[in-house]
């Protein structure tokens, strides 16, 4: 009997994925598409005095905000209901009465949510790429016409087009979507950990939302703690910030889409670092979840 079986984990992952799909969670993608299209149209109607770059930045900003919000809400809600639902409906009894180690069960559930989020974020990103591409082409056509009217040379127009294309569909845009997936995965890990010892779904959701907000201040707490430590100072605030820095995830790291909106490019190395951070932290949350769940009685 193996303690950790990838094939058994895959069975639970696939079942969780099917369960969530058949709960019709993908219907929210329709809401996303309508919201995105509607808000983008509205943005363009009101932004008549903006430059093409500003318009494209506004489209991206709004779309990333929506993708990120949907992903975080989805990660928290989907993960928070999984285990309590299995306990409430007693489906957990029948699963754990088969030769299934609890670590396999938790990992399978977590990967099921991850798989579903990957598909959802990929679909949303595809739509985002379509919208950005549409607006970039429209901006290029508009700028070309304007430059021709002003009698600009072909070389000037080509340079301008090159400049505009940096705001269009790029690798950095895909990396930003990937970073959103990583952030949502990390939050799902936190929700999984809380759901293993929480007594209600509401508590899990509220606690995870609080941790999500704390996660955006974790870097500040860490900086504060490190600066105090270098000065040899200690005290209540220092200990508190140290605790925050150790226990909570640094979600500011995953806000690469903010940098993208400011015109920064995202490198593959940066994404590698993010992926490593996410894997280590998710591994830690999964290990803690298993620790809390391994002797849980039903």
């Amino acid at each position, binding site marked *: *009997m193996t*303690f950790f079986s990838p*094939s*058994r984990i895959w*069975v*639970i992952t696939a*079942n969780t994925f*099917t*369960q969530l799909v*058949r*709960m019709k969670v993908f219907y929210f993608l329709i809401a996303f598409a309508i919201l995105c299209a509607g808000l983008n149209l509205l943005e363009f109607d009101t932004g008549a005095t903006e430059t093409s770059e500003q318009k494209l930045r506004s489209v991206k900003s709004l779309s990333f905000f929506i993708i990120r919000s949907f992903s975080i809400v989805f990660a928290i809600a989907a993960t928070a209901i999984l285990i309590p639902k299995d306990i409430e*409906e*007693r*489906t957990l*009894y*029948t*699963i*754990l*009465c*088969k*030769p*299934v*180690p609890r670590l396999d069960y938790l990992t399978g559930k977590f990967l099921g949510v991850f798989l579903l989020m990957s598909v959802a974020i990929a679909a949303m990103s595809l739509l985002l790429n379509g919208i950005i591409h549409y607006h970039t082409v429209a901006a290029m056509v508009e700028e070309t016409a304007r430059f021709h009217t002003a009698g600009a040379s072909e070389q000037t127009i080509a340079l301008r087009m090159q400049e505009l294309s940096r705001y269009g569909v790029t690798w950095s845009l895909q990396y930003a979507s990937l970073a959103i997936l990583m952030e949502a995965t990390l939050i799902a890990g936190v929700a999984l950990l809380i759901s293993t010892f929480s007594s209600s779904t509401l508590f899990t959701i509220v606690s995870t939302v609080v941790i999500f907000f704390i996660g955006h201040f974790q870097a500040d707490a860490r900086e504060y703690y490190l600066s105090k430590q270098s000065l040899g100072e200690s005290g209540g605030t220092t200990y508190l910030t140290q605790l925050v820095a150790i226990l909570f995830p640094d979600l500011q790291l995953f806000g690469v889409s903010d940098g993208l909106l400011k015109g920064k490019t995202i490198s593959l190395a940066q994404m590698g670092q993010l992926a490593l951070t996410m894997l280590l932290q998710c591994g830690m949350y999964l290990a803690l979840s298993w620790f809390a769940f391994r*002797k849980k*009685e*039903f």
Partner: protein
Amino acid sequence: MNAVDIRNLSKTFKSSLRAKPLLAVRDVSLQIPEGQVYGLIGPNGSGKSTTMKALLGLLAPTSGSCHVFGHDSLKVDSRKDIGFLPENPYFHKHLTGEETVRFFGKLCGLRGKILKEKTKEMLDLVSLTAAKDRRLGGYSKGMLQRIGLAQALVQDPRLIVLDEPTAGVDPIGSREIRDLILSFKERGMTVFLCSHLLEQVQEVCDTVGIIFQGELVNQGSIEELTSIEEQTEFILENASEALLHQITELVKSSSDATILRTGKPKTTLERLFIETARSRNH
């Protein structure tokens, strides 16, 4: 080796700070030899489910131990040989009957052709082949009970643990489940049955344990527990009035024996219902 070996099992549930801890099971010991059908009976809240959950590793004993075919029930290994049907089983409603059996088969390590054949065999066994493509959300209580049996049996376990297997099932379904339990016994499987339906337990079990307020108060074979040593029963067919009179007189002439009751034996309401239903179906 015993299929089930529970020794001095006690389980206390800690409650809130003010309330006293609840002693759900106290010093329960029972052994089930391989191939036997054991029935644990007792009123609601007597500790049947706690004993069963400890055997399945869903609860850790406060003291004592539970072993299944020599394996500690807290270890995952012990569950390779167990098939469990919970009371009022709820499975993932989004899955069809066939997907459910396949899912549990896969969890037990079955794959490919073997899984396919086993799924078909189980669905046939519980008479759900016609409903295999329907989602469990649309199954009746009896059908859920039967799909529960199918998933419990999918990996050919040596021990079947059944918690109130006929709860909410109509008399015909109940009879079918009882027949299945008897067929498990014929196939050499060990059955651990928890129920408060005494008649059902009496019909299928070799050994019975009576649990009351967390304590196993009586245990033994059905024969031992239900026989009234000082009484004798014989049922005659086609006996004439004269013969019956002769017997009565003979007993009266005896100094020790007394006739307590005579009359026509009665069929059970359950048997009457099943016979009526069958005759209507034909």
